[in-house]
């Protein structure tokens, strides 16, 4: 048989081709479900100091506490829309720890905690949730501009915009990247492909995360695509694409750090699929997960959630304890209480301001409307 005959036969063997595709994506994993070290080399490569580890677990606990409080407050009508994050603390907080203030965060609506750790005051996040314009000002408490966009409502739009920021950073020669988060459902959107493809074509400074948390509201991951691995979609854009245990904080940090280093050096973007799970409803707006998934499934994921393994790993290492954890949770709760008070006392929004904000130079009809609402004190 000539070489070409062999090649032709292989090309036409679709079944084998599918198997090869499926087997190409091993999962990056450093800690097991209970926090035991699986890969010492990878742990070393992460170069995390004890202080870093404490910072990461604190960020994860902050996120979990915000989640618990947000859901409770929403039930009391004191919070607006909130998309729960429990179970995704490694995927969100350990990944974002690999980026710095100069990097641009492009969040989806479930990525509130990542913006908060970039300096977005919690009271602003509360206002965002309640629907107040001050919640959409991305400045720190001391007035510093935060390199983050608002939590994107249109699934996937943050990906094309991230490509634009990433190209801009590259053009300006900045030592920074754009990092964007979407979910498993987001990978079905046209903007997902356009975003990774544009960033790839321009070798722009971007890191793209797919938080595969199992469900897009009620639609399971299996119905989004025939692709066995969502990361495989990055191949079509010609960019490095990896799958990582999204509940493993060390693996999440490691892959994010390496992806950032790759992208910031002018090599182009990286796509990271994080295997995680949403342990709670889609949102505080009345979603009941038991309409579309089994309690057993939810329970099994609670056994694999990221805080268990991070806590065990750090306790074993002698740098964490239940006492430290409880003290920190108290601290977070006190902070959240204070922040709610600030949010409760902000000035009322004005319709006249909305019209003024719509165009820098309003038209005649708009000016008339501004005058009318101002005369009514609105």
């Amino acid at each position, binding site marked *: 048989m000539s070489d070409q005959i062999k090649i032709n036969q292989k090309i036409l063997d679709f079944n084998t081709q599918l198997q090869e595709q499926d087997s190409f994506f091993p999962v990056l994993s450093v800690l097991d479900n209970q926090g035991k070290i699986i890969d010492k080399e990878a742990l070393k490569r992460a170069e995390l100091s004890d202080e870093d580890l404490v910072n990461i677990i604190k960020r994860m606990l902050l996120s979990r506490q915000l989640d618990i409080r947000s859901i409770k407050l929403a039930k009391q009508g004191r919070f607006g829309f909130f998309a729960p994050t429990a179970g995704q603390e490694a995927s969100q907080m350990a990944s974002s720890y690999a980026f710095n203030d100069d990097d641009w965060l492009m969040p989806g609506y479930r990525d509130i905690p990542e913006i908060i750790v970039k300096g977005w005051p919690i009271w602003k996040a509360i206002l965002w949730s309640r629907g107040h314009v001050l919640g959409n000002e991305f400045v720190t408490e001391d007035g510093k501009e935060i390199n983050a966009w608002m939590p994107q409502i249109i699934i996937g739009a943050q990906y094309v915009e991230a490509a*634009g920021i990433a190209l801009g950073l590259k053009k300006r020669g900045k030592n920074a990247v754009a990092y964007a988060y979407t979910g498993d459902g987001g990978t079905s959107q046209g903007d997902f492909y356009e975003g990774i493809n544009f960033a790839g074509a321009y070798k722009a400074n971007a890191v793209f995360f797919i938080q595969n948390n199992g469900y897009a509201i009620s639609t399971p991951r299996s119905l989004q695509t025939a692709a066995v691995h969502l990361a495989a979609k990055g191949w079509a854009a010609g960019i490095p694409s990896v799958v990582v245990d999204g509940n493993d904080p060390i693996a999440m940090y490691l892959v994010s750090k390496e992806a950032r280093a790759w992208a910031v050096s002018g090599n182009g973007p990286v796509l990271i699929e994080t295997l995680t799970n949403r342990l709670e409803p889609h949102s505080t707006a009345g979603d009941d997960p038991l309409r579309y998934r089994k309690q057993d499934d939810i329970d099994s994921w609670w056994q694999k959630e990221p805080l268990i393994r991070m806590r065990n790993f750090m306790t074993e290492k002698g740098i964490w304890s239940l006492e430290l954890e409880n003290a920190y949770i108290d601290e977070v709760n006190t902070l959240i209480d204070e922040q709610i008070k600030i949010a409760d006392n902000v000035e009322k929004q004005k319709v006249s301001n909305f019209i003024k904000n719509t165009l820098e130079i309003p038209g005649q009809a708009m000016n008339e409307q501004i005058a009318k609402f101002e005369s009514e004190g609105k």
Partner: protein
Amino acid sequence: MAVKSYIDAIREAMDLALEKDENVLIFGEDVGENGGVFRATDGLQAKYGEERVFNTPLAESGIGGLAIGLTTQNYRPIMEIQFFGFVFEVMDSIAGQMARNRFRFNATRQMPIVVRSPYGGGTKTPEMHADNLEGMVAQIPGIRVVMPANPADAKGLLLSSIASNDPVIFLENLHLYRSLKGEVPDGFYTTPLDTAAIARAGSDVSIISYGGGVPVALKAAEELEKNNVSAEVLDLRTVSPLDIEAIGKTVEKTGRVVIVQEAQRMAGIGANVMSEISERFVLNLKAPIGRVAAPDSVYPFAQAENDWMIKADDVVNKVMEIVEYD
């Protein structure tokens, strides 16, 4: 001052903007070496380099996202949508994102983006290349919609659009690109984004139009003069926001109005102009408002274009009907 074509005036504006402000970028499908499918950006990549004038992959939503993202790095993007019929692919970037961002961020962030795109019929294009979709985008709060009707305005309005911190949809009439020539002032100048212009003064009737409708209205006005009817032609120039004051002035002057648009009767800007007149200036009217627009079908197949599009005769007939009303 020199006589230039509509497309040459547009290119000159971009050339001047690139020269004046290093933050100005031009990108879109085929705008680089090829200079755009109509040559609107011809020579600009050679002059300013690939860093500033560059091709994009073929995906309109990606182009819109690119523009929005680039504003965070203080760029002033001019993005081209090759034909405005392709705007549906980028509607989220335009309507869902750039139009809302200034409002959304409490005016702490600006969207200095120009979306340039050709529209309009009369050149026998394939489907989705000729539609007048200005009415659709003019109904979106947060963006300005600009439709120049002559070369001098095309240059001045484009330079203003590039300088604007509001996102601007800048619609270029495809049929006029090379068929329309006119005096264009030299050098850098801007034309305000909120002012209509009297394209021809008159006293018996006001023909209010914009974009590709204006040359049709002007041709009709010439014919009408032979019938001793003095028609004033108001060119709206910026269709969102509307210059209501200028509309009021011409209505007060003549008391008779015919609105002319290339778009279908149910689309376009005409209905909005009519409602402003009805609400504010109805007591100045001596006759019902007349309207000349394309029929309410989908934009026709190329071979039937001539039967479907509005013509100067349609305008003359409608004006005579309105002028003779008492």
